């Protein structure tokens, strides 16, 4: 009989932030427990207290270097409310939307091509030195060129709306600080057709992978769950910037719908566990065991009634046909959903670029001050909630952030255990390739562990294996750029 073992994958690679996985193998080499641990603590919720309200959208975006726009905009939306502004001037809202679509596009492209593509193109068990973006470029130079150009396009959109590609200052309480000059608009319009074609090709690649590997996709980290996102209030359409909250169960049944997101705390609570800095949110009425849910691109495809751009909507119908309209529970289908959203963003960007409101000069509204504000947005990785209270002197007294990766905490842990049981149980020798399977499952959620712990991240993953007595018996630490 073998000795019980503890395997540790540390750090997890090709994700954002710092986390590790521990896998407990018993004396029969069966997986007893597998967990994703978030080992960094950041404390933004605490140290934002005592700062001034207009600083908040600029400070909290430093939570992340990949999707700072999401935090910037969620915080700005909350501060709009605090400043008494319920409706932004059209130019302000459209500039913010343009910023957000550029952000979602560049983040999804970064994840799909730079982080996930090596696994999908070369296989989960491919040699570690093969699993990186440089090998993707070597293998398919045109694909690599497009990946870089598409991400640049998204980042250029962010720069045009926020002043910088990363950590800009565009959104201010009540509005925006700039409009879009005609010459900048025309620069984007000159390449938008290429972006659309490339987005369609990327979508075809993700769709093709999913359908060609249907058996793998069906069993790899797949399990039923609830899904939650905001959708457009009027008609349930996909809306990444604003809407009301909708939660569905794994059969597509409604848990709640048209929920004003300022009432999020009536439906969602956060559980705390001693082994992770990341909380575990769940739907209050269902309890922690049944009430956990997933967010993100696939969750949005599951919750949205339709998409209001034609090409992306057709792609959504195509995705839904796989499950006959029921929610899709396949973790790996997130990549397909992500590329549908890239196409949606390109279509939205095109529409906005043709809207003369972007050249408007009414940039900021004012109102009567309030003490509390909540801003919710669909970030690339899923639903993002910012909640603040501000005193009469404009100083923040309370902050609660529930970020996309936090919403997905239980789902990622279940995916880790599912894959560990299927690929590690019964194995005498644990190889690096086997461990990468676990990372692939985590990566499918495109987690941002920095955001979720509110860690200066290089996003490496650590895997640890413990014996039945809890003694660490094996540990794998992978550095960025390795598998």
């Amino acid at each position, binding site marked *: 009989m073998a000795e019980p073992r503890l395997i540790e994958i540390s750090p997890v690679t090709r994700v954002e932030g710092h986390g590790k996985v521990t896998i407990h193998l018993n004396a029969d080499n069966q997986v007893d427990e597998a967990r994703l641990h978030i080992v960094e603590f950041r404390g933004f919720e605490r140290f934002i207290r005592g700062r001034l309200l207009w600083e908040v*959208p*600029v*400070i909290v975006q430093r939570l992340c270097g990949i999707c700072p726009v999401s935090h910037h905009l969620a915080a700005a939306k909350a501060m709009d409310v605090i400043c008494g502004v319920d409706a932004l001037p059209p130019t302000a809202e459209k500039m913010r939307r343009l910023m957000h679509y550029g952000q979602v596009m560049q983040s999804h492209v970064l994840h799909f091509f730079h982080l996930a593509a090596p696994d999908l193109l070369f296989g989960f068990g491919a040699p570690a030195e093969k699993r990186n973006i440089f090998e993707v470029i070597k293998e398919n130079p045109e694909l690599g060129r497009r990946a870089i150009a598409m991400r640049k396009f998204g980042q250029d959109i962010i720069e045009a709306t*926020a002043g910088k590609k990363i*950590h800009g*200052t*565009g959104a201010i309480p009540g509005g925006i600080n*700039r409009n879009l000059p005609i010459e900048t608009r025309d620069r984007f319009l000159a390449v938008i057709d290429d972006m659309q074609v490339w987005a369609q090709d990327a979508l075809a690649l993700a769709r093709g992978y999913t359908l060609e590997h249907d058996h793998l996709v069906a069993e790899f980290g797949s399990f039923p769950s609830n899904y939650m996102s905001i959708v457009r209030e009027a008609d349930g359409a996909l809306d990444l910037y604003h809407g009301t909250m909708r939660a569905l169960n794994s059969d597509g049944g409604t848990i709640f719908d048209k929920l004003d997101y300022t009432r999020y705390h009536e439906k969602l609570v956060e559980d705390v566990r001693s082994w992770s800095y990341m909380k575990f949110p769940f739907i209050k009425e269902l309890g922690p065991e049944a009430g956990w849910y997933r967010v993100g691109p696939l969750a949005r495809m599951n919750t949205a009634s339709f998409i209001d751009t034609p090409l992306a909507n057709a792609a959504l119908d195509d995705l839904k046909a796989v499950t006959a309209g029921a929610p899709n529970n396949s973790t790996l289908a997130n990549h397909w959903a992500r590329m549908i959203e890239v196409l949606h963003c390109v279509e939205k960007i095109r529409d906005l670029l043709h809207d003369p409101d972007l050249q408007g000069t009414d940039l900021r509204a004012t109102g009567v001050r309030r003490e509390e504000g909540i801003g919710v947005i669909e970030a690339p990785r899923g639903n993002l909630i910012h909640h603040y209270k501000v005193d009469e*002197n404009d100083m923040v007294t309370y902050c609660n952030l529930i970020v996309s990766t936090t919403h997905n905490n239980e789902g990622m842990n279940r995916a880790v255990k599912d894959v560990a049981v299927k690929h590690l149980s019964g194995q005498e020798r644990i190889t690096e390739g086997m461990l990468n399977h676990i990372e692939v499952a985590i990566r499918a959620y495109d987690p941002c562990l920095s955001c979720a712990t509110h860690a200066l991240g290089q996003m490496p993953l650590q895997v640890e294996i413990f014996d039945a007595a809890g003694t660490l018996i094996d540990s794998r630490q992978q550095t960025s750029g390795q598998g």
Partner: protein
Amino acid sequence: MSDPDFTFTIDGTTIPAKPGQTIMEAADAAGVYIPRLCDHEGLRHQGGCRVCTVKAGGRSVAACTQPAAPKLVVENETDHINKLRRDLVEMLFHEGNHLCPICEASGNCELQAMAYRLDMTGPTKFPYLEPCRAVDASHPDIALDTNRCISCSRCIRASQDVDHKGVFGYVGRGIHRRVAVNGSDLAHTDADITDHAISADVCPVGCIIRKGVGFATPIGEREFDHGLIGSDIEGKRRE
């Protein structure tokens, strides 16, 4: 009969001057920039920050207070002097919490701009003191974050000499000296900015800030987005 105009040199350039002019005043008029942080147009010269230190006749002097003199030989932009200036600026950074990435003064901040001009491109070699002082946001129009104060005393001179209010002053001594207000907090002073008071407008950093306007100026349109600090003065020379 007044004394006649005269000339002196800065780094070999002949500078015309009038009697009573400081080295900095004459240099500014001639389009030669001497770095400074505490000096401000319209306020009395103080010579406090020492960033304007030059060598005049072989002695280190503050250019903002030292009168120009006929045939004086002044060294300004030398490697040695600029290194001393950079050390001074680095010490200012280490004394306070100058978190440029999240500061609303970024792009308009003279300390940040001076660091760029003096080629301070990384963390300082000094340890950070990381002060932890509460922000005073009690006033409806302005807020005071003394974690960012560089003790230039511009606000004090403006309040006393121009606004004639005496709202701002120093408390403490040595390393503990900091700017304070003549009341329990800003709300209990007459730091009103609705008149012609300038004390809130002369702050070179993000210590005294106007409420509600932070980040309203887009990146690209801020004061130092298109040129080094001092380029306006140097522009006169090119004209």
